[in-house]
């Protein structure tokens, strides 16, 4: 029986090749998007699962506002270094506590012998206990003592091979240079660890032990922030433990603040701050970023898109199979009077769905293999399918998907078929034995709702992206590069590049697109307290950026006062403080230093458009503290500055042979900020096109069946005198109602979704109307076109042919 059913299934597929192709192809496309997503989700949820021992490893998180993007407090992955010592003493459940600080900037320069220096990212500096906490597998060296001595380094196997060409590198030396003028540390390789099979949240290429993590700052007023990780003896109830952790933390803070000449109450209670310390299982670290939403929230739109795509292709399948079931009605009727149970018939048709799903799944696997490189590239992850360590679980997921799709796609048509009343069917009365028209229409509507919503989405996203790309940023971003290095006044390198002909300005600021560092500062103006963002600049920074002056002036050499206590406000800060600010003064800092406002500039964007520009004060003076964040801005005065960059690079290499020069153009930094939403748009465009094509294929096939089913009616109408056009119109009308109602439903859905997306941007367009109009027009036109293609065929047929067969 199974064999015979299989034969029938295959014969049916071959008989209706076009529909089979649409069905299987459509399903394969929907599945491909879904499987790619599945691979991505698998990858993202595989973090920190590479060793069973990791279940006893935790990350310490402190709640503070140091080094945050908006100067507000967050649960941060870097904690004050003294906490490690406190935890070691006070929490007996922690067997080992280690401090590990991720490298900053662009990475460290590694110089081996006389070779050219290379930049290596993610070099983590730890104390000697790192490998007691993290169970990395040593393939060379002694894991117990590897980083006991200072100036030792342990490399990942892959990195060792990349740097030395071999993983037999114990005893080899390399020089680690952390910035251009750093003399560098000569490190000895004491171990090589195996690269884990799955991703790590604390990703490193090398672990160094410089000794800097071994001690805390001598002066009580200084703090040092570092990652702290602990290894527990056995399983911990984090809820319970976090309570005692908080107690220990509050006690510690009280003592510390007292030593700093203030009190716990003054620091936290009066300022409405919250004190917090907790541990997080290492497996949750990746999915709990400090500032941004986690990966799952980030890819939510994409999850929704691929699920919708899968739904569309399943709907196609259901629709076509049900429409096609007319052709199988006789078979069902006959089999019933031959003594088939309903269950046997359902199983038969489910098997047919399974065959098609399986075929689709094979095509999917091929497509996934083909698309994976591009997909990995797009999402910046290394995904693999056949070579994945999770192959077994992927295969079981695919099997589950296969069962699910088979049931989703096959069950309804199978039920419809198996329910046929044999008398009606055998009398030749298919129509009445043929149900589910309402449902099929509903499904077509659903398909078009999704497709139209996608099209509207493209329109809105396109407009917003266009707006962002062409928005006036408030500064001039071309002919401007940012060299990644610190800049102290009087720096000889800087003085030398200032002499290069096309160089107009050389300056530094803590706030430039691509690398913005916000520090919060409290100021008192008119006896009122305000929190603003403070940016340290050099004299030339604001002219170099090309900011626009609203009132007053920006810094200039002619004013000696500028290096003493001048500040420039941006418009947001000015709005916060009041009117006519130029010449006014405010106080700030523990010593109540007095600052004078000399000018107000237009807000300029220095981060992505999701964030509003913060109220900011700019100052050249070091009065009240300053920051320095690896930005060296160079503004050129003509478009042919490439040769000037070459000259700068040559100059750099002469002075700093051990550290390569790294720079980006601010234009590139800007494009990088636009990338996430551009990326989302590209995906939405891709998905929209696929979903529209799928919906149209579905409509095409459905209208074919409709035309076929109404062949006799069409023939009779023609004999009665209907013109071809009238016939085409008649067939179109029934579909048009569906497409138009789908549009009406899509509008509010698309409106709500795109509005929500737009609200994620501080700088956004008003909701545009034309994407809605265009989506509707497009969907109607292509639907009419598709249906007419079929209707015309049916209409121009000779009516006699149709009637002869009856």
């Amino acid at each position, binding site marked *: 029986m199974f064999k015979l059913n299989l034969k029938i299934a295959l014969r049916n597929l071959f008989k209706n090749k076009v529909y089979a192709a649409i069905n299987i192809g459509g399903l394969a496309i929907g599945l491909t998007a879904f499987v790619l997503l599945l691979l991505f989700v698998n990858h993202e949820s595989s973090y920190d699962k590479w060793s069973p021992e990791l279940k006893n490893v935790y990350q310490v998180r402190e709640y503070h506002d140091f080094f945050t993007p908006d100067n507000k407090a967050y649960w941060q992955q870097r904690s004050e270094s003294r906490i490690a010592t406190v935890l070691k003493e006070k929490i007996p459940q922690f067997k080992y506590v280690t401090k590990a600080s991720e490298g900053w900037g662009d990475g460290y320069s590694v110089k081996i012998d006389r070779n050219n220096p290379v930049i290596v990212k993610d070099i983590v500096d730890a104390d000697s206990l790192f490998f007691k906490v993290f169970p990395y597998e040593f393939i060379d060296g002694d894991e117990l003592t590897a980083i006991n001595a200072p100036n030792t380094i342990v490399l990942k196997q892959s990195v060792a091979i990349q740097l030395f060409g071999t993983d037999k590198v114990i005893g080899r030396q390399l020089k680690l240079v952390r910035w251009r003028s750093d003399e560098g540390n000569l490190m000895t390789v004491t171990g090589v660890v195996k690269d884990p099979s799955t991703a790590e949240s604390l990703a490193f290429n090398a672990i160094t032990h410089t000794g800097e993590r071994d001690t805390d700052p001598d002066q009580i007023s200084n703090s040092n922030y570092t990652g702290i990780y602990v290894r527990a003896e056995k399983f911990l109830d984090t809820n319970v433990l976090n309570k005692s952790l908080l107690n220990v933390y509050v006690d510690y803070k009280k003592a510390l603040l007292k030593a700093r000449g203030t009190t716990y109450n003054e620091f936290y209670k009066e300022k409405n701050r919250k004190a917090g310390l907790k541990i997080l299982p290492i497996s949750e670290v990746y999915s709990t970023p400090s500032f941004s939403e986690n990966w799952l929230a980030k890819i939510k739109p994409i999850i929704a898109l691929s699920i919708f795509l899968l739904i569309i292709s399943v709907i196609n399948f259901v629709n076509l199979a049900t429409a096609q079931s007319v052709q199988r009605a006789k*078979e069902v*009727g006959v089999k019933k*009077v*031959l*003594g088939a*149970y309903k269950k046997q018939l359902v199983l038969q048709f489910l098997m047919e769905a399974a065959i098609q799903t399986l075929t689709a799944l094979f095509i999917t696997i091929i497509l996934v293999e083909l698309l994976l490189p591009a997909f990995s590239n797009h999402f910046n992850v290394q995904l693999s399918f056949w070579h994945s360590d999770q192959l077994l679980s992927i295969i079981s997921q695919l099997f589950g998907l296969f069962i699910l799709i088979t049931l989703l796609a096959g069950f309804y048509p199978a039920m419809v078929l198996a329910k046929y009343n044999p008398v009606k069917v*055998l*009398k030749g009365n298919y129509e009445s034995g043929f149900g589910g028209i309402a449902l099929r229409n509903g499904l077509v509507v659903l398909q078009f709702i999704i497709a139209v919503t996608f099209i509207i989405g493209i329109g809105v996203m396109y407009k917003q992206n266009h707006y962002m790309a062409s928005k006036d940023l408030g500064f001039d971003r071309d002919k401007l590069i940012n060299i990644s290095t610190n800049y102290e006044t009087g720096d000889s390198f800087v003085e030398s590049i200032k002499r290069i002909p096309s160089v107009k300005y050389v300056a530094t600021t803590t706030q430039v697109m691509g690398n913005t560092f916000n520090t919060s500062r409290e100021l008192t103006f008119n006896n009122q307290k305000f929190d603003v963002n403070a940016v340290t600049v050099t004299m030339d920074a604001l002219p170099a950026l090309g900011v626009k002056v609203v009132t007053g002036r920006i810094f200039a050499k002619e004013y000696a006062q500028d290096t003493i206590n001048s500040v420039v406000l941006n418009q947001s800060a000015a709005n916060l403080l009041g009117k006519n600010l130029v010449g006014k003064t405010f106080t700030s800092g523990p010593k109540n230093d007095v600052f004078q406002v000399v000018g107000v500039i237009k807000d300029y964007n220095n981060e992505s458009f999701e964030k509003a520009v913060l109220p900011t004060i700019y100052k050249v003076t070091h009065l009240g503290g300053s920051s320095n964040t690896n930005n060296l801005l160079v503004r050129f005065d003509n478009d042919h500055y490439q040769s000037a960059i070459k000259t700068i690079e040559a100059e750099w290499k002469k002075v700093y042979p051990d550290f390569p020069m790294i720079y980006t153009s601010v234009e590139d930094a800007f494009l990088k900020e636009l990338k996430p939403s551009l990326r989302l748009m590209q995906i939405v465009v891709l998905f929209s096109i696929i979903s529209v094509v799928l919906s149209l294929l579905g409509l095409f096939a459905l209208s074919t069946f409709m035309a076929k089913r109404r062949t006799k009616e069409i023939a009779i109408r023609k004999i009665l005198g209907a013109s071809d056009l009238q016939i085409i119109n008649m067939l179109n009308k029934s579909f048009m109602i569906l497409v138009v109602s789908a549009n009406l439903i899509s509008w509010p859905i698309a409106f709500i979704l795109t509005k929500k997306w737009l609200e994620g941007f501080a700088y956004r367009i008003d909701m545009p109307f034309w994407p809605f109009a265009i989506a509707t027009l497009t969907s109607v036109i292509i639907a009419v076109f598709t249906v007419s293609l079929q209707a015309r065929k049916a209409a121009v047929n000779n009516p006699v042919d149709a009637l002869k067969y009856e």
Partner: protein
Amino acid sequence: MIELKNIEKYYANKGVKSYILRHVTTSIKQGEFVSIMGPSGAGKSTLLNILGMLEEPTYGEYHFMGEDVTAMKERQRIELYRNHIGFVFQAYHLIDEMTVAENIEAPLLYKKIPGSERKSRIADVLDRFNMVAKKDLFPNQLSGGQQQLVGIARALVAQPSIILADEPTGNLQSTQAEQIMDLFKKLNQEEGITILQVTHSEKNAQYGNRILTIEDGVIKEDISVEKQM
């Protein structure tokens, strides 16, 4: 074998009952060859469908081999299809995607007859109907008469005790029709299979031994055929 008592069938339309069958009471014994005749729309097919349990009567009693059909569960009815009833249709109703041999095999699959026996039974019928050479053809490659032969072969292969045939020769030319009628007669006389056919043709009706005439849903005549041959 079949007992009908007061069978009624009506369709209610807007409160008006339109009767298709009224007070149909009759019995059919094992081994009879009954022809049902009557004008178009008289209710012949409805009666045959009720006898074949494809439709339910609105009222009345129906016993098949001593069992009350109206009280039967779906499963039991399917068992009857598998073991006792064979259908032959005017439009043949072969499954287009199956070859001649596969069409004939289908009922045996539902009876769960083992493969070797299936093969020999199919070979037997094909041989008997002179269709061995055609066994791998699809229905659309056969003439109407040949298709109906396959339809009958399919009904016979499961060794039913009764064959229900609704205008089996309605689509056929007279020579082909004669061939089918001869076959029915042979099956009836040599194998004792009960046959119930609906026909419009006096001539075809003469092959059987009893004629039921239905008009407006009522049995008008019930006569037995004198054997002139």
